């Protein structure tokens, strides 16, 4: 586990812009923040404020237009493909659209990231069964994503992020598609991950998560307005 005093993730003057036809869209402008190890960070702000973009940059899923992201003190842009893959294995990302592979069953979706890490099939199935049981999906182990409801798919995505025992869990609106009871279950799971000493970064509108947060950053029009 990381040293609680040291920042596990750090964003320095991050900017990200996209081309949409002839126009350039600035999704993030000069964002700097520090995420200490073991913290529970909330990223809030209205839709289109840049929360998802910031989360993707922190999760090493995208490259910034300018600025740097440091994971465990090392600039992500300095990593090779292999180095970046190793970083991503230490990060668990829960996408807003779940990002499940349609042809794979729930348990396979949860444990596919463990295959390159050399985890045996039987062990992988055990990990998936344990996580999906805790998320109330034991009877859906072999279901394909199309056979699952939105909430169930969300829970499979959560289970996948937790399966590799990531040091940092980054979640994009993890409770947005869930009913009250399931959302509470996911919040409790994230709280448990945090209690376990791991870092949690959540982009959300959900006020129920505020109570768990050790720090909160608010974004508006791609800029950090409070934090």
């Amino acid at each position, binding site marked *: 586990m990381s040293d609680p005093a040291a920042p596990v993730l750090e964003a320095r003057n991050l900017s990200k812009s996209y081309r949409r036809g002839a126009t350039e869209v600035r999704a993030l402008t000069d964002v700097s923040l520090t995420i200490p190890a073991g913290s529970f960070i909330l990223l809030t702000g209205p839709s289109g404020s840049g929360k998802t973009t910031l989360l*993707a940059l922190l*999760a090493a*899923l*995208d*490259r910034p237009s300018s600025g740097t992201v440091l994971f465990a003190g090392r600039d992500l842009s300095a990593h090779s*493909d*292999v180095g970046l*893959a*190793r970083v*991503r*294995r230490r990060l668990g*990302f829960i*996408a807003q659209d779940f*990002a*499940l*592979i*349609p*042809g*794979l069953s729930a348990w396979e979706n949860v444990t*596919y*990231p463990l*295959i*390159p*890490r*050399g985890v*045996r*099939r039987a062990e992988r199935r055990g990990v998936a069964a344990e996580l999906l049981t805790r998320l109330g999906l034991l009877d859906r182990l072999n279901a394909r994503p199309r056979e699952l409801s939105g909430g169930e798919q969300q829970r499979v995505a959560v289970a*996948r992020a937790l399966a*590799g025992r990531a040091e940092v869990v980054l979640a994009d609106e993890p409770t947005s598609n869930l009913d009250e009871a399931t959302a509470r279950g996911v919040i409790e799971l994230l709280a448990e991950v945090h209690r376990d000493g791991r870092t949690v970064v959540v982009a959300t509108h959900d006020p129920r998560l505020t109570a768990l947060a050790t720090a909160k950053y608010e974004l508006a029009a791609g800029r950090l307005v409070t934090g």
Partner: protein
Amino acid sequence: MRTLLEIARTGVAAALLHPARSLVTVAAVLAVLLPYLVGLGISTGVRNAANAAVSHGADLYVSGEQLGRPVPIPRTVATEIASIPGVERVVPRIVGRIELGKERVSAVVVGVPVEQFPAGVECIEGRLYASGPRNELVVGTDLARKLNLKVGSYLPPFYHSRQGERVSEVVGIFRSDVSPWQARLIVTSFETAAHIFDQPGLATDLLVYCRPGYEGEVRQAILRTTADRQPRLRVVAREDAAALIPEGLRQREGVFTLLFTVAFAVAILVVLVTSGFGLAERRREVGILKATGWQTDELLLRSLVESLLLAVMAWAAAVVLAVVWLKAFNGYWIAGVFLAGVDREPGFRVPFRLTPVPVLLAGLVAVVVVAAGSLYSTWRSATAPPREAMR
């Protein structure tokens, strides 16, 4: 190692994850491999059949040559050659192409003395032709069927000769489904052939049969005794004739290889397109795996295994279908592509032999075609930022 095997297993699963794409890819590769295997199978079969025919033929073939072109030679040369020590017998022969009927069906007329009627040709109906210029013909079953000829049928004059034109009579029918050489064959007397081609006293070539061990000496003697003769004589030994067969076939194979190279290039493009069949989904899948910690080389290994599986499936299907096409369907349609003048439904047993080299080469081609297509698209997706690929 275990990890690599686990990743390889996901490649096998990937082929089943996208059944439509897998089917289209296999079909595209099959469309290239099948004609390739069939073509080379026929080519090898024809070469073997030609070699067998030559090995049962004469020891020496004597023909005329003037200004580098083949010309007929006087029949009297046969008598001169027959007197050379070591010569057992000399058979004068006339060979020429004609066209028959309204549909201008091409046929090859061979005029040989009746006592030299080809041993491998089996007359199943009627009788052999009589000696002399009687215009009696023995035709193959395939030609007879095509032109609706029976024993006793008369053919109106189909040639122009300075000695007048005559009606020809079909006196016998032989089995022509034995080899490709007999499919369009008409055998007649030497004199009738000379009349048909308006070349009295001339022969296209002479078949010289020698006593064992005398071939070289006889060849030298023929060239020596006829050195000042016009046209100049060309003597081809059986071995030389056999050596000429691959040359002719290689020309055909060369054209075939050229066509196949074009098809190969097209196939890579087709597989690139089929790799794009469900590309968005596939690209997203690669993005998701990258986002969850897969490396580019691991994704390429997964894609390679998937490609190998699809290539092996296409290859196996191509080999099985090639054998079925040529054995069970006797090269229906495809034989006509590789053998000049052969109908859609060949009237003879199409010679066919699949040797290990082209079969293995086809496997290699399948792997290259599929891997080139799918590895490229995987690499492109894997080297993009995962968020971009997941969109």
